[in-house]
């Protein structure tokens, strides 16, 4: 069956696994699942540059590799620069006739830390220079690889090892950085959010992003049982609740035009999402109410952007 395309409902999904089994991801890892789905959507004509982080560490202990695709890793914060070099290199070698002409998609993979913190300069540069690449940010809302330290993508109220909840702290006191808005501010042709709990939506977006000429960005919520402290069998459910509560809405920004991928007439209370996870266990009802209010306001803002785009 390997490599054959079979039908799942109205979507076509390959049974080819570009990520070989035997990797070291934790059981129930949302990043692993999201990555597997993304790779199915990408096919084989790709070259991947991967930042340091869980994905890299779990897939490449020398002398083994889980990668059935051409793949490189060098450092934590340079992935967007590296893929710029890959893309420019391929283009010029093809132009000069040194390698055969073909369509090879350049893919960058990084975590939320490698994207929204230490790698943001390189990413901004690569967007601005208009390289033809797709950047996939796997957001598990902290530096998981190094032991659950806070990042700028960690949500308000979450307890992490460097912003722990304590007598005088609720943990993270800042709001999650809006990476998609930052990507969109570069006027890139395509940006989107996705989550492994919505596999077809994720795969369609990855396929679409890979087909775009120019820079494309997909921000993928990747639930992490280890860092978020929930039982590993709940990964899909936690991801669904993130979307259903409006905490992590799924949308696309096509040439600056916002469109919700899943528009729910009524959002579930954020408490349903928060209460499943140990990282939010310390939050008082009052704090949860605060988070509810902020979530509603952010969701309304997004809806306004969608409405303005439709108008």
């Amino acid at each position, binding site marked *: 069956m390997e490599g054959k395309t079979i039908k799942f409902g109205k979507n076509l999904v390959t049974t080819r696994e570009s990520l070989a089994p035997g990797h070291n991801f934790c059981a129930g890892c949302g990043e692993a699942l999201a990555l597997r789905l993304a790779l199915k959507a990408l096919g084989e004509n790709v070259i991947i540059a991967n930042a340091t982080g869980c994905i890299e560490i779990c897939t490449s202990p*020398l002398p083994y590799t889980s990668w059935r695709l051409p793949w490189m*890793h060098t*450092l934590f914060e340079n992935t967007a*620069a590296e893929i*710029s070099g890959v893309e*420019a*290199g391929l283009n010029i070698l093809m132009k000069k006739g040194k*390698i055969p002409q073909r369509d090879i998609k350049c893919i960058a993979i990084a975590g939320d830390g490698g994207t929204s913190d230490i790698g943001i300069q390189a990413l901004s*540069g690569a967007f601005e220079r208009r390289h033809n690449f797709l950047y996939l940010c796997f957001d598990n809302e902290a530096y998981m690889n190094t032991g659950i330290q806070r990042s700028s993508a960690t949500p308000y109220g979450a307890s992490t090892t460097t912003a722990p909840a304590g007598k005088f702290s609720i943990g993270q006191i800042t709001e999650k950085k809006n990476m998609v808005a930052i990507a969109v501010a570069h006027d890139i042709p395509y940006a989107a959010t996705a989550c492994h709990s919505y596999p077809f939506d994720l795969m369609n977006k990855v396929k679409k992003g890979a087909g775009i000429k120019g820079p494309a960005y997909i921000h993928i919520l990747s639930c992490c049982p280890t860092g978020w402290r929930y039982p590993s069998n709940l990964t899909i459910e936690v991801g669904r609740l993130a979307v259903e509560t409006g905490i992590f809405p799924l949308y696309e920004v096509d040439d600056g035009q916002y469109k919700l991928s899943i528009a729910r007439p009524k959002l579930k209370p954020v408490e349903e999402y928060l209460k499943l996870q140990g990282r939010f266990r310390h939050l008082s009802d009052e704090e949860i109410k605060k988070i509810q209010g902020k979530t509603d306001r952010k969701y309304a803002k997004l809806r306004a952007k969608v409405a303005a785009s439709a108008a």
Partner: protein
Amino acid sequence: MSKRVALEASFAVAEAARMADVDVTAAYPITPQTHIPERLAEMVADGELDAAYIPVESEHSAMSACLGAAAVGARTFTATAGQGLELMHEVVYVASSMRYPIVMAVCNRALSAPLSVWGDHSDAMAVRDTGWIQVFCQNNQEAFDLTLWAFRVGEDPKVLFPVMVHLDGFTLSHVTEPVILPEQSEVDRFLPKFQYLFALNPDKPMTHGAFGPPEIYSEAKIAQEVAFRKSKEIILQGWNEFGNIFGRHYFPVEQYRTAGAKTLLLTMGSSTETAKIVIDERRDKGEAIGLISLRLWRPFPFEEFRQIVKGAETLIVLDRCISSGMGGPVFSEVRSALYNEVPKPKVVNIIGGLGGRDISENDFEYVIDRSREIAKQGSEKMLETVGVRGKMIGIRG
């Protein structure tokens, strides 16, 4: 026919990269390196060079983009200086460990603080352990020649290491001198096309840069070290072939009037040319003094160096850098290279030429006379400075 033209050293470097037909340049401007990327950008804009010029947003990204380009098999070039080299520091290590034969010109510059755009060797010394083949240039012709040679050696399948070509900021990078430019056909004879066996390619998936657990990291590093030391063979072969085709000959340790010399002065980079004037005067007066210069800095040319300094009584090492609390880095290395040798010269360390401070002929006169006095006193006071206002510091070292 080759032609002789007046060319700034930075332009000579760019010209060598052009004649090497580089595929990708990613660079970020910093004084005194700016003329190199500017000239390359101009060549690309005018169609003189068919290459991708990536105007990256930092030196960290410059070297990172070079990694990506090299990984797919592109001939890759960059240039930087001082703070830029420091900013890309972690990526510099990766280039050699991943065995990507990137060529980088470094227009040597002092390191902040205080901020200084002027020349010394602090930047070069900070990257001496990064696993790059490293050479120093003394003049414009060498800047051209060694840049060309760097591609030939680095890309050799038996080498596959990146090469750093050091040229002093301003005192070399911005100097205009006559340079002999070869015919393209000669360059093509010297420099084969870059055929990278491990290029990333969807038809043959490969993993570059897996991480090294403790069970394998040591083996990976030692394998790299063995290959790096072996590269010396190709380095010499490359210079041999260069000599055969272009008629200019390069050696790991360059010598100037060293026959029978009892005192040897060791310099690196462009100050060597000033030192030659002083050596000439003294030699002509009958003094047994000569000049040597480390052309090849890494891999360190142990055999050649030991052989050349064997007969000398005093070796004066001029360092344009301070390793704080230690002395001059070149001094430390050459003294350690001589430790087990019998007989061996007394080694005296003079530090000068920091942050663009000129080292004049007079300074060299002082350096030589003073060093001989110090050598006579024994090993108590082996470190001094030259050209620094205020009290000379004599430090035990």
